[in-house]
């Protein structure tokens, strides 16, 4: 080991992404065996993580750091302690089996390579999540699991339900992701810490902080969305649209356990308060019962397992909420036990579906003879789910009951919920294992036979793992349970797991009670099923329908907003823009009292000083008169072309003012811009077929005129107010002093543009070019619209378009081109050509040319 552990830990999180990028290619070359080949990646990670057990036991924690954004003190850091090691081992171990299973299950699927890439990336995200030390890294991997699970659940994208399930998962878990980001930033804001490993030591200050409630809410929303706690549980059953290997991975040990991991991770510095305990226990308890009952309501094996996963997640959340030593020990054991049996059962169900062609529990029976190995694997997993002694799950149940005998009603009610939940889950386990395999054989869509090695390896290995863990109980307690529980509790604890059944202890009697209840529930499963169905129809709506209503409402709202804001009428856009400008000018001036600077009450006699600027030279008066004349001409002009020209006159006068008052650069630019804008405006007017005259009704004119006046007066007043103050000249002094010595330029304006503020200019020219591209797109689209015009019924087009060329041709020839027999001015030509008949042929020819090669 030694120093290179650091890099290797980072590699654990990074290697799967590299493998994901290569997976499709690898799959192509190693086709029938690609699952086994790719499984080497998680297997290698698993072996590496096993080698870390000893150092972690010795030191408590190993960490690794890669510089990420050093400027902000951010590192992409990873750490391994008991908790993350337990999760990472389960993820990589089960991941290995999932890869083998996937290729057998999806053999021959055209997009298998892509699927394997998604699965690998998902596993990387999940490993990164449980190993991340930096909270932002945690968030990043958290979101990566959401994205990759979206791809996996929606893998069968041709089906609507798969797409819907994927979108629903993404939406719900991303709400949690946003909450997590907010929580993480809040925690950093309050404590100044990014590293989770430091928070365990220094995070206790959070409890006293006034914002503790908000932080708690953020983390709980994040965990509850990801771990499907009631009432946000509904995405999980819909996510079952994913191929079964995905469900087996996502809903046993990875995706949904991320929320549990987050809660366990946050417990030392966020937990142990009344709010934490109450919320987790209440929601966990409700979720446990709701999920367990929901499971009995289903007849689809996969759905039954999905609902039971919700119940198990509720159980884990409840246990973390309890927070006692035994509860946390129960959490860790139950997490491992659940991961082993749930992944196994999902794979068994997938195998049944694969070989028998259905997974409806009512249509299956007597498969044990045809699929003996599958049956054996199912029994092993079922023993776990039932919580029977030779499996590790038995000890999970014992641990969770252990400390709840205090004569408080709270403890007793939690105990009752736990027993009821466990009993119902055990009944579900019995149903899933017994119903399809025992009893009279039924006819299935496919003639059932044993699955291939790839399909069987996973569930069998997991089933034996569960028993092996129980048989080596001392080792399990010492190397897995104690370090993980230690990390959650933040205090050293010792495992007290023993292989001794003491009939004097009440715990064993509680286990017996659970089994008796489970058997009762199993026997009356049909009755419970009908009752729940009836309740369902009576209720009429589910969280699912609420989600749909919310989503469609959102889409409709977005559509309405777009239509309201993006109505396509240029006139109203301009009114909006200038209205906002007027508000931005008027509100600070009058609302905030900035205008007061213009009439100082004591100095009213000093007006002559303020009017000193009126003493201008004659030629300066001339320029101002020119500007005013231009302004008058714009308003009074008989048609738009004159207005545009008058605008040019007025702008030129303004440019002259700039020139006279010491801004030659500005004046220079203004001259050219004036000329260009006259040319462009005239072109736009003729090209876009605008009316030559202004046809606005009086109300519109009044509205636009008022707006123009308010904006103009507002800008003038604003400038006058600015001039009453003293300008801060530090910046201009700096430029004047340094322009020649350090920037080698005498023209400060240009030096600022290309040197001091060169980066700004780079941004501006990029924007300028982007705007140019956008304008070109608009013009090209217009051209296409003209192309499409002949297909509009001619009666609609002709009366509108035809009069224009006549008029413009007449005016053009009359005013400028009397000698020419045909009007050939740019203006005349342009307008004539826009008439559809003339435009079609020449416009189409190049198109055809383009299509030919």
């Amino acid at each position, binding site marked *: 080991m030694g120093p290179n552990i650091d890099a290797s830990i980072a590699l654990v999180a990074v290697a799967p992404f590299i493998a994901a990028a290569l997976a499709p290619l690898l799959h192509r070359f190693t086709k029938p065996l690609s699952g086994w080949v790719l499984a080497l990646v998680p297997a290698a990670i698993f072996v590496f993580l096993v080698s870390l057990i000893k150092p972690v036991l010795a030191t408590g924690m190993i960490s690794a750091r890669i510089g990420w954004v050093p400027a902000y003190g951010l590192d992409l850091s990873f750490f391994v302690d008991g908790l993350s090691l337990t999760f990472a081992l389960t993820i990589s171990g089960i991941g290995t089996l999932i890869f083998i299973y996937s290729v057998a299950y999806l053999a021959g699927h055209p997009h298998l390579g892509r699927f394997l890439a998604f699965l690998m990336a998902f596993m990387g995200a999940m490993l990164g999540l449980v190993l991340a030390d930096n909270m932002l890294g945690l968030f990043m991997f958290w979101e990566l699991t959401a994205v990759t699970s979206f791809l996996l659940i929606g893998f069968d994208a041709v089906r609507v339900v798969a797409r819907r399930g994927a979108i629903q998962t993404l939406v719900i878990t991303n709400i949690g992701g946003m909450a997590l980001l907010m929580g993480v930033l809040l925690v950093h804001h309050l404590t100044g810490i990014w590293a989770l490993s430091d928070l365990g030591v220094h995070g206790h200050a959070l409890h006293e902080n006034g914002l503790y409630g908000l932080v708690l809410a953020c983390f709980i929303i994040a965990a509850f969305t990801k771990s499907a706690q009631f009432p946000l549980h509904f995405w999980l059953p819909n996510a079952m649209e994913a191929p079964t290997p995905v469900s087996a991975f996502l809903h046993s040990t990875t995706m949904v356990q991320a929320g549990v991991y987050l809660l366990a991770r946050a417990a030392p510095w966020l937990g142990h308060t009344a709010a934490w305990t109450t919320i987790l226990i209440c929601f966990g308890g409700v979720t446990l019962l709701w999920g367990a009952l929901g499971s009995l309501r289903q007849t689809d094996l996969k759905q039954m397992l999905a609902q039971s996963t919700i119940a198990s997640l509720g159980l884990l959340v409840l246990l973390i909420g309890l927070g006692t030593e035994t509860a946390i020990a129960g959490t860790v054991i139950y997490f491992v036990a659940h991961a082993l049996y749930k992944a196994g059962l999902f794979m068994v169900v997938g195998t049944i579906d694969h070989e028998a062609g259905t997974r409806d529990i009512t249509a299956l029976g007597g498969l044990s003879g045809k699929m003996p190995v599958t049956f054996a694997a199912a029994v092993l997993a079922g023993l776990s789910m039932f919580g029977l002694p030779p499996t590790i799950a038995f000890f999970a149940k014992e641990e969770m009951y252990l400390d709840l005998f205090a004569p408080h009603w709270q403890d007793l009610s939690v105990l009752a919920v736990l027993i009821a939940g466990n009993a119902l889950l055990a009944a579900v386990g019995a149903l899933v294992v017994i119903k399809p395999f025992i009893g009279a054989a039924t006819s299935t869509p496919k003639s059932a036979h044993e699955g291939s090695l790839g399909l069987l390896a996973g569930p069998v290995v997991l089933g034996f793992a569960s028993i092996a863990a129980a048989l080596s109980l001392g080792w399990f307690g010492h190397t897995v349970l104690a370090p993980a529980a230690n990390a959650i509790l933040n205090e050293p604890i010792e495992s007290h797991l023993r292989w001794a059944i003491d009939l004097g202890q009440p715990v064993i009697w509680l286990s017996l009670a659970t089994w008796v209840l489970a058997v009762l529930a199993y026997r009356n499963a049909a009755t419970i099923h009908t009752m729940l169905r009836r309740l369902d129809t009576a209720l009429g709506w589910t969280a699912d329908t609420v989600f749909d209503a919310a989503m469609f409402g959102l889409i409709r709202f977005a559509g309405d907003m777009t239509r309201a804001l993006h109505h396509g009428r240029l006139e109203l856009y301009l009114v909006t823009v200038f209205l906002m400008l007027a508000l931005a000018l008027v509100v600070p001036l009058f609302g905030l009292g900035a205008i007061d600077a213009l009439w100082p009450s004591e100095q009213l006699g000093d007006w002559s000083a303020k009017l000193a600027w009126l003493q201008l030279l004659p030629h300066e008066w001339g320029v101002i008169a020119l500007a005013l004349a231009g302004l008058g001409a714009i308003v009074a002009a008989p048609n738009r072309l004159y207005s545009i020209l008058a605008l040019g006159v007025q702008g030129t006068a303004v440019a002259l003012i700039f020139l006279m008052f010491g801004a*030659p*650069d500005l004046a*220079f*630019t203004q001259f*050219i*811009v004036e*000329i*260009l804008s006259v*040319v*462009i405006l005239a*072109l*736009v007017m003729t*090209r876009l077929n605008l009316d030559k005259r202004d046809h606005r009704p009086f109300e519109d004119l009044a509205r636009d005129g008022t707006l123009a006046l308010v904006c103009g007066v507002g800008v003038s007043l604003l400038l006058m107010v600015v001039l009453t103050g003293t300008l801060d000249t530090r910046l201009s002094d700096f430029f004047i002093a340094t322009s020649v010595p350090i*920037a*080698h*330029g*005498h*023209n400060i*304006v*240009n*030096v600022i*543009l*290309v*040197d001091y503020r*060169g*980066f700004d*200019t*780079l941004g501006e*020219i*990029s924007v*300028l*070019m982007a*705007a*140019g*591209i956008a*304008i*070109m797109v608009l*013009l*090209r689209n217009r*051209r296409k619209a*003209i192309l499409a015009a002949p297909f509009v019924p001619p009666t609609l087009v002709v009366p509108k378009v035809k009069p224009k060329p006549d008029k413009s041709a007449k005016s053009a020839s009359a005013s*400028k*081109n009397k000698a*020419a027999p045909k009007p*050939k*001015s*740019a203006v005349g*030509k*342009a307008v004539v*050509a*826009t008439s559809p008949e*003339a*435009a079609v*042929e*020449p*416009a189409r*020819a*190049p198109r055809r040319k383009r299509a030919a090669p």
Partner: protein
Amino acid sequence: MNTVIFRTIAPIIVAIMLVFSVYVCLRGHNEPGGGFIGGLIAALAIVVLGISSSAAEARRALHFDPLSIAGAGVLLAGLSGLLSIFNGNPFMTSIWLYLNIGGSIVPFSTPMVFDIGVYFVVFGTIASITLALESENGEEL
């Protein structure tokens, strides 16, 4: 606008304007002028050319698509900023070279290259818009 006089004189005006635009662009560091105004003058020259003959003619005279010229300008401006990296300085730190060409000292600098980039962007963008507006309906844009 299509008088013989205008059509005859236009190329001369255009040529003078283009040369002037380059002059304005290059002197910008010390006198009023610069890449922006130079680009505007050059664009105006192309507008004049387009009005006197046709947009297609102007396009042919330009040889390159005006938007490509603008793109090259952005690239040039960005690359001029990158040069300072070879000096170990941050992005856009200016570099000055004084070359002795034929007995007179001629300064070359990255801000100058940057300004030429600005010139191309302004020229290319404005020219492409005006030419598109001037062009006939059947033309490719």
